[in-house]
């Protein structure tokens, strides 16, 4: 099992959800994060004082899947999220040693 973490632009969330659903992914967990990277931030001004804000609001999508489906998930997410502009974000793949479905106690592939 792997956890695929997709960090990308907020407004791509719906597209990614659709893309993953298409390849049969039935669950995911989403959180709001702030990213710092090449994209750079923006200037804000409050009563004449300028602030450089380096962080950009991003969305993080976590999907745990069987090893065999990792490549599909990456492909689907990349397709949905890519704009080609700096700031499209990253995908990280992290090993997962065990999965449990709380409701049933099922573990492993059955639990996802």
């Amino acid at each position: 099992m792997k956890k695929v973490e997709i960090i990308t632009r907020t407004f791509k969330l719906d597209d990614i959800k659709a893309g993953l659903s298409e390849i049969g992914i039935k669950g995911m967990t989403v959180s709001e994060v702030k990213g710092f990277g090449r994209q750079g931030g923006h200037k804000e001004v409050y009563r004449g004082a300028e602030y450089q804000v380096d962080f950009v609001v991003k969305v993080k999508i976590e999907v745990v899947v069987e090893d065999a489906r990792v490549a599909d998930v990456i492909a689907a997410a990349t397709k949905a999220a890519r704009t080609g502009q700096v700031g499209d974000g990253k995908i990280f793949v992290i090993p997962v040693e065990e999965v449990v479905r709380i409701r049933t106690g099922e573990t492993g592939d059955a639990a996802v």
Partner: protein
Amino acid sequence: MNAADTAFVLICAALVMFMTPGLGLFYGGMVRSKNVLATIMQSFILLGLVSILWAVAGYTLAFGKDIGGIIGNLDFLFLNGVGMDATGAPVSNIPHLAFMIYQCMFAVITPALITGAFAERMRFGGFLVFTTLWIFLVYAPMAHWVWGKGWMAQMGALDFAGGAVVHMSSAAAALAATVVMGKRKGYGHMPFIPHNLPMTVLGAAILWFGWFGFNAGSALAADGFAANAFVTTHLAAAAAALAWIFMEWRHSGKATTLGAASGAVAGLVAITPAAGFVTPMPAILIGLGGGVFCFLAVILKNKFGYDDSLDVVGVHGVGGTWGAIATGLFASINKATGLFYGNPSQLWIQLASVAATWAFCFTASLILFKLVDATIGLRASADEEDRGLDLSQHNETGYQA
């Protein structure tokens, strides 16, 4: 001059002033959080911009001595001759300055109403230029025609507190805006869900509160007509709030808070032209009509697919039009008589004024929007829309964790 009337009109002017930031909150709660400040700003800054335009030339164009039924003369340019007594004012019971500033508050809120139509995609610079032109070329003439002894007044059209001058005019401009500016990016593909409905309800509450100043104050005296307008205003808003949530409940199974707030505003709009001409029970009917018709108009919009972001046409256009017609039906006091009280001609006059208002305001606004679009530009870029207008137009963000 009468001190009681002066006290009443001044306080009413303050109430109407409060409506404009209230409108900003009403609208601001309905947009996405990245646009909250830009939306509020489009109302708030008009307290600055329009007030100055009004003092400089707007007031005299609207209320200066009538020139051919079309426009006021320049006697009151820079408020020249507008003083602490009633000299030169249309009414003799309050200071001319009190009348002027009361009218100023109407001029401020009217273009603010339009901003709901192009919310979340308008450039700030273009907005300021458009509004400046619109005040002089659309609002001031309309106010003159109806309240400044212009041709609509001469024709006998009834518009107690601004069904045509305020609501239809802004709604016609709103319609023109949606034609010229097109839809928000992503419209139809992604949800546009209000980001802060308590803010919207607060805005609606301020609007309702201020509307007593708007309608009862339009009696320009603290008398029985003011009391009547106060009551009709309140009951119409109440009836429309109920009507709207009833329609919602029939339509999708639940009443919503946004529906109650929207319905109240629809009722307030509908009663505006009628408030001083009808009695309480007809006011309830006008409110019910306002709630039902505006709800249906908003549903229809979703079907038509034009992007009037916050339903200016559905609420102010439909509500104002219904109110103007209803005035022709139900008028029975204050020297006015409608169809149901034996005077069918009033209805024709109302219909004529409705048609003229929509035609003039839509055409003129369309030309102004196109003009500004062609010169300095109206529409934020796709990237600016993505980042949100707060950041892209104002270098600010509404909230920090």
